[in-house]
């Protein structure tokens, strides 16, 4: 029986979680030198922008923030067919010797991150690439793990994690919904 959607993070909790992630990213990098954030289209981009603002408030410098659309690096074109390319890739600086942190909303199978790693390799050779995700829902199909995790949740494959953010959806909230229910 489909359950009612369950809120994992409300607006205040989401803000608090991002703040902690911002601190952890700076800690992981031992500062903000050579640090570059890259958000994955779509919601990862807005989350990365917020983390950059939080780091600027805490630490001073505004670190570069790029965007990555991995649609063209997916491994399911033959089966799923072309998806609309939703957003632009924006990485106007060299990534050589930079500490890149990929930011995404939900980590699930790991295939999106695999594609993002392939795409980043076409833009240079970073010193290190780390992964920061707002929600880790388990269910990996590839040997990929996140370095910074906002919230770990146990979600069965029949359920879906929906991340709503103010910039795109008009509200900040993370909910777990049953896969066939409408949000």
């Amino acid at each position, binding site marked *: 029986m489909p359950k009612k959607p369950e809120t994992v993070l409300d607006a205040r909790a989401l803000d608090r979680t991002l703040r902690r992630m911002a601190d952890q990213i700076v800690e992981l990098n031992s500062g903000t030198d050579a640090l570059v954030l890259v958000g994955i289209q779509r919601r990862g981009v807005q989350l990365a922008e917020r983390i950059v603002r939080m780091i600027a408030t805490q630490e001073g410098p505004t670190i570069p923030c790029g965007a990555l*659309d991995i649609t*063209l*690096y997916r491994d*399911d*074109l*033959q*089966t*799923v*067919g*072309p*998806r*609309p*390319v939703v*957003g*632009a*890739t*924006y990485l106007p600086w060299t990534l050589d010797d930079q500490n890149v942190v990929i930011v995404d909303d939900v980590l*699930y*199978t790991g295939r999106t991150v695999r594609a993002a790693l*392939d*795409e980043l390799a*076409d*833009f240079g050779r970073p010193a290190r690439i780390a992964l920061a995700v707002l929600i880790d829902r388990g269910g990996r199909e590839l040997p990929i793990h996140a370095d910074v995790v906002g919230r770990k949740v146990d979600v069965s494959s029949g359920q*879906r994690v929906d991340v709503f953010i103010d910039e795109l959806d008009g509200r900040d909230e993370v909910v777990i919904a049953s896969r066939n229910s409408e949000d």
Partner: protein
Amino acid sequence: MAGSLGKDLLGLADLSADQIRLVLDTAVPFREISERQIKKVPTLRGMTIVNLFFEPSTRTRISFEFAEKRLSADTVNVAVAGSSVSKGETLVDTARNLEAMKIDMVVVRHPASGAARFLAERIESNVINAGDGTHEHPTQGLLDLLTLRDKFGDLTGKRICICGDVLHSRVARSNIWGLTKLGAEVGVCGPRSLLPNAIGEMGVTVFDRIEDAIQWADALNILRLQLERMQGGYIPSLREYNRVFGVTRARLDAAPRDLLILHPGPMNRGVEIDSDVADGPHSVILNQVTNGVAVRMAVLYLLAGGRPELAEAAKRGAP
């Protein structure tokens, strides 16, 4: 599914306004790939595309080849000279032989109108029309639309005049279909001998004088005057053509607004277009070339993969 163009791209007459917009919207992010240091994404890795050209072509073939290679497809160019085609093999036999070598797509240019459709109905591979006779040249039409949309935003109510040899031009036909579907007003201007008799039935305004077209239009798409038309008796001489129909600086100076200048190339400078117009501040002729690669990448991408039965199955099991 959001991305559907179907199996083939044969002409803009077959596409809906939404499908045309889908290609243009998809082409925009593809432009960025050509700006990268590594101008390549792995999207079509493992796919084989044959560029089958029964007519000489430089820019269209190169543009397709760039698009294919930047998407990581494997490409083979077959030109008429030196192939079995010159030994009398038919279009279908050539394509079936290629298909027996396991290819995925064919980009075809052919002097006969309807050749692309003829082929598409007989082979499994996706077929992209790169110009068939005087019928259509859909990717040229799409890149013209993208170039106009870059400058104008919405094309609704914009006035585009196609100048020159409309009678023999597949570019003109694809443009008229595409522009009309996106809500633009289309004019044509040229000697009556180079305009189709039934042109009025395509919903376009006919101008006999280039000066009147310039007064009316927001943009001119100036077609190449095929030099062999003169031998065919369609026009008295190139000089006279330039004097009566040539787009010159002086004529444009009389326009009430700045006109955007398009030309599908290759240009006959001093015949249909003067050099100071072609190289002038309102010329978007090189933007068209850049957009050509992006539009072709978008078309290849949208036609690739997408086997609906697998897509449905994947949707049921995927996030």
